């Protein structure tokens, strides 16, 4: 079973040379820590920066330079700032190559729910609906089950949707799965996790073809 850093480490292997990548809040943010340093990758934050760097050193924070999580950040050589309409032109126009975000639920047809729980205070969707509706390549980073132990990979989402039929790949603490026309195709197991355990934790249709390799981290 992987922890949050393990999930981020596995997803980092999906980040390829020359990619512009948008990272959501939570586990996705950790992915930046594990991307190989011998490839050229630029991180976009939808509030208007491309070429995001690490957090600033203490005393060097600039209130005018933050990420979409409202955290103080730095920029790297080659970075640029732009307005919000331009930022979403990059996203909607499919210029951003990969979007990594968290989810509360994913359905076997690729629907995603990650913004609203009925009965609880709704904070808003932020940029999530634009991101999931537009990106060609979306990876969901999440735990396989919720805090109550219920599966987050479902036949259909029970929560209000963020987007329809958009998720392509899911990396959880237990497995790597691809969303196909037939259901969740199991690609890899997390270290020490059996196919049986993954089956038991997946409420949606799970497709297991032959031997499932263990993830290489």
């Amino acid at each position, binding site marked *: 079973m992987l922890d949050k850093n393990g999930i981020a480490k596995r997803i980092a292997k999906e980040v390829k040379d020359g990619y512009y990548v948008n990272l959501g809040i939570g586990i996705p943010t950790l992915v930046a820590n594990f991307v190989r340093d011998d490839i050229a990758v630029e991180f976009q934050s939808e509030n208007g920066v491309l070429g995001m760097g690490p957090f600033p050193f203490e005393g060097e924070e600039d*209130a005018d330079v933050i990420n979409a999580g409202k955290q103080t950040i730095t920029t790297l050589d080659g970075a640029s700032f732009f307005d*919000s309409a331009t*930022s*979403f032109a990059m996203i909607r126009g499919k210029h951003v190559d990969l979007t990594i975000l968290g989810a509360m639920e994913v359905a076997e047809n690729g629907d995603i729910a990650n913004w609203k729980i009925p009965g609880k205070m709704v904070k808003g969707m932020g940029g999530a609906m*634009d991101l999931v509706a537009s990106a060609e390549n979306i990876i969901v980073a999440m735990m396989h089950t919720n805090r109550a132990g219920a599966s987050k990979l479902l036949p259909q989402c029970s929560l209000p949707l963020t987007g329809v039929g958009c998720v392509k790949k899911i990396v959880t603490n237990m497995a790597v799965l691809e969303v196909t026309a037939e259901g969740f195709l199991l690609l890899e197991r997390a270290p020490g996790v059996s196919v049986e355990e993954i089956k038991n934790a997946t409420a949606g249709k799970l497709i297991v073809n032959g031997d499932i390799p263990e993830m290489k981290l």
Partner: protein
Amino acid sequence: MIKKVVSGVEAALSGVTDGMTLMLGGFGLCGIPENSISQLVKLNVQGLTCISNNAGVDNFGLGLLLQKKQIRKMISSYVGENDEFERQMLSGELEVELTPQGTLAEKCRAAQAGIPAFFTPAGYGTEVAQGKESREFNGKMYLMEEAYKADFAFVKAWKGDEAGNLVFKGTARNFNPCMCGAAKVTVVEVEELLPAGALDPNEIHIPGIFVNRIFKGTHYEKRIEQRTVRSK
């Protein structure tokens, strides 16, 4: 040269009345028009509709207007970090229209550019789509979204000149440029107000034609919501 400079925040906000629709730049507390917000509190205008990506925090930004119950309706993409907001929303005192962030930006830009409506994939198949026209283009479904109509846009820029030309800094740019010229009156506050000719025309982000009134702001707090640092 056409001059856009007004004497200060009082002159800049003259004409703001109860029940108006306002656009306010900023992402979180980054790049918000602090001086204009203070003046709105002072004017005590009521029943406002505010178009702004976020709603401030309890005691800063738009939270100051919420505290005084000056806002009737908030149009935003994300409204966390604000207890008073939550209380007013749950009690029904405050109407909230949640809009995907890219759609919110484009609804401002469309207003600026004279485009009445546009199609976007964001929100298709979700509750955001309720009551909206949808249409298929090249095998994909899109929602029709309309440009905003606002009375005033309040914008914060870093530098500006007498002609109203603007330069923004860092991610304090965000929604500010999209709101310039997107309302009947655009009011800009700047940290540095320069004579015409001091800014290089090649490096201007927003030309003065989109600006009606410009003034030099004072006492910027520039609060940081999430101070994140690493050790040396």
